[in-house]
């Protein structure tokens, strides 16, 4: 059997032309063309999740409630140790911050397995593979909306500040969070197909993440240095912004400084929003490229 192999070792490789890689505009265009497929996948996920779970609507609130519960326990311990009372606003803060966290961790752990979970489709039918992580993330968003409505309607009763127009910032923050999550999901779902243990690593990191980001903490608890380290984590601004805009009613264009025992802590600054937006764009663009270059080998790996 002697066939010339264009990529074989030893032989002078004949320059074999290959189709050029599609640009990001082409890829996004292709995904847009498949929007009906995204809708169908989202509907499939939602139908299965809500018709099978007896609790239905309450299911959407279960994760945030668990996170708030865990945060409460954590804060009660901290408050007891520090001999300071637990304020009503911190419960509202916990609830508001639990929402983006529940969305992010839920979406990411689902989306990491989204490609491998559809390996029978990957090896049999062509469609833009980006649709899989994308629709998995989108399918998590109704939970976020339900949670947001519940938190917004309960908040005036547990917190004196109440809602203000600044709450509308939340929409921008959550849209950016969506982009950020899809970006991460593209990387991880692709990686998990090549390395099947990525999903376990993701799970461990997500368990840590709740302490590394300001879900349970207020930044001022960590002092100036600790707070800035925490806010460097790309996910932190999203979580902190929920507290600032929704619970405390500040505009995200303001800089908010809170005094702590170790000095003044910048709890929020406009650059944080820009920083989060920058990360979101960076992740989504590189994510699309990396995913697309990996997806040419999906069918062989699946």
């Amino acid at each position, binding site marked *: *059997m002697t066939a010339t192999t264009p*990529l074989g070792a030893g032989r002078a490789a004949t320059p074999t032309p290959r189709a050029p890689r599609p640009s990001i505009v082409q890829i996004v265009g292709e995904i847009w063309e*498949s929007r009906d497929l995204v809708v169908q*996948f989202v509907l*499939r996920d939602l139908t*299965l999740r809500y018709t099978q779970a007896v609790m239905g609507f309450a299911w959407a609130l279960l994760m945030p409630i668990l996170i708030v519960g865990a945060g409460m326990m954590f804060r009660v311990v901290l408050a007891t140790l520090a001999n300071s009372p637990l304020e009503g606003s911190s419960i509202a803060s916990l609830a508001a911050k639990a929402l983006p966290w529940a969305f992010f961790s839920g979406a990411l752990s689902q989306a990491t397995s989204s490609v491998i979970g559809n390996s029978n489709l990957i090896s049999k039918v062509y469609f833009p593979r980006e649709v899989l992580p994308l629709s998995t993330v989108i399918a998590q968003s109704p939970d976020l909306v339900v949670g947001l409505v519940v938190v917004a309607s309960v908040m005036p009763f547990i917190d004196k500040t109440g809602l203000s127009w600044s709450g509308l910032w939340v929409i921008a923050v959550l849209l950016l969070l969506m982009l950020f999550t899809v970006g991460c999901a593209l990387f991880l779902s692709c990686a998990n197909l090549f390395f099947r243990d990525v999903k376990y690593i993701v799970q461990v990191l997500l368990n840590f993440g709740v302490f590394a980001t300001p879900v349970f903490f207020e930044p001022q608890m960590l002092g100036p240095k600790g707070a800035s380290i925490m806010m460097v984590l790309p996910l932190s601004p999203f979580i902190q912004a929920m507290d600032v805009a929704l619970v405390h009613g500040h505009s995200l264009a303001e800089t908010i400084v809170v005094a702590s025992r170790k000095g003044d802590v910048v709890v929020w600054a406009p650059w944080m929003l820009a920083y989060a937006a920058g990360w979101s764009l960076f992740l989504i663009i590189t994510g699309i490229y990396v995913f697309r270059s990996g997806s040419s080998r999906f069918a062989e790996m699946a």
Partner: protein
Amino acid sequence: MTTKQPSLVFEGVWKRFRKGQLHDSLRDLIPATFRRMTGREPKRPADDRYFWAVRDLSFDVKPGDVLGIIGGNGAGKSTTLKILNRIMEPSAGIVKVNGTIGALIEVSAGFHPDLTGRQNIFLQGAIMGMRKAEVMRKFDEIVDFSGIPEFIDTPVKRYSSGMNARLGFAIAAHLEPDILIIDEVLSVGDARFQQKAFARIKQMASAGAPVVLVSHQLDRISELCTKAILLERGEVRATGSPLNCINAYLHGMSGRGQGTGEPSVEFQRVLASDGQVVRSGEEVTITVAGTASLDNPPPGWVPALCVVDQRTGRNVHSISGLQRDIPLPVEGEFEYEIVLQMNVPPGTYHVMPFVWDSLKRQDIMTGPRLQIEVLERSPFYGDVQMNSRWRAIKLGARTSVSPDTKRQTA
């Protein structure tokens, strides 16, 4: 709408796969990488690590073309289809696709068992690239074609496998792609549905769009295709007219172990002494002659003969000297006479002598083919001519008299 005509072009397409085990987890990869870096595991040469599933494949399909791809198992048909369908990328070469591709492959791959038939139609339709509006417009037609309207709101997990496949095919059959790719989906459902499915495929294939068809059923290829490619171990063995390729394929089944000059049994002549045209159910006499030059008779080797149906490529009959106590000639000239009763439907058959290794259960050397035409005798349907004889014992008080039931003397 594309302004250019839909077309599909393969230019020197190669595809290789990695052999052996893949590291598909970090737990395996990290130690393996470390071993390679420290030189404890020698890097294997590329030829050892890869094999080529498709080698230098070129063809083009234009409107009005129906290209058939044939070949045995492992010839590269499925890989070619996957490259065509953009599921895989070629390792080298260019695939130019102008227009949307619709594939009648794995027609129910996207079904979710917990969703109803109705929900799955929308899901599978979207997976195959249909717009929602399109699915809605064709929904009634799809349900009607599937023939299971009463179960459309039942979860698919309660469907029989036949129902599942029928619904899947019904969806795929309503695609309107610029280019159509068909794998052997014909083996779907019961005989009646298969006929319906084939009629539909025929209709889609003759609509003028470029079509690529992969099938083991050679009669389908010869019936539908305008041109064909014969693949063997990833390489093109023959191209051109479907009949040419089918002949080359059937001949290829006989090509092994010849002309090497090694000690062998060489079949020089295969003749039908009373002519190559018979009627179904009649006998044909085959003479096989040749020379043998084997040093010592290998154990288990026996002379044998097979009959292959050109339409389907199926081996309809094989017989060896083992059953007839005919030994294998070892030295010098030999000649056999074999009488076959052609109890087969009308068609073209190929008779082929070969040497059979009854211990390893494989054919060793094969001879030239002889084509036998079988003509119709008394019409019948099915695979075997049984030369039936009917006699009426009792026919009731009245019998129907219609042109179809005119009594025929068998």
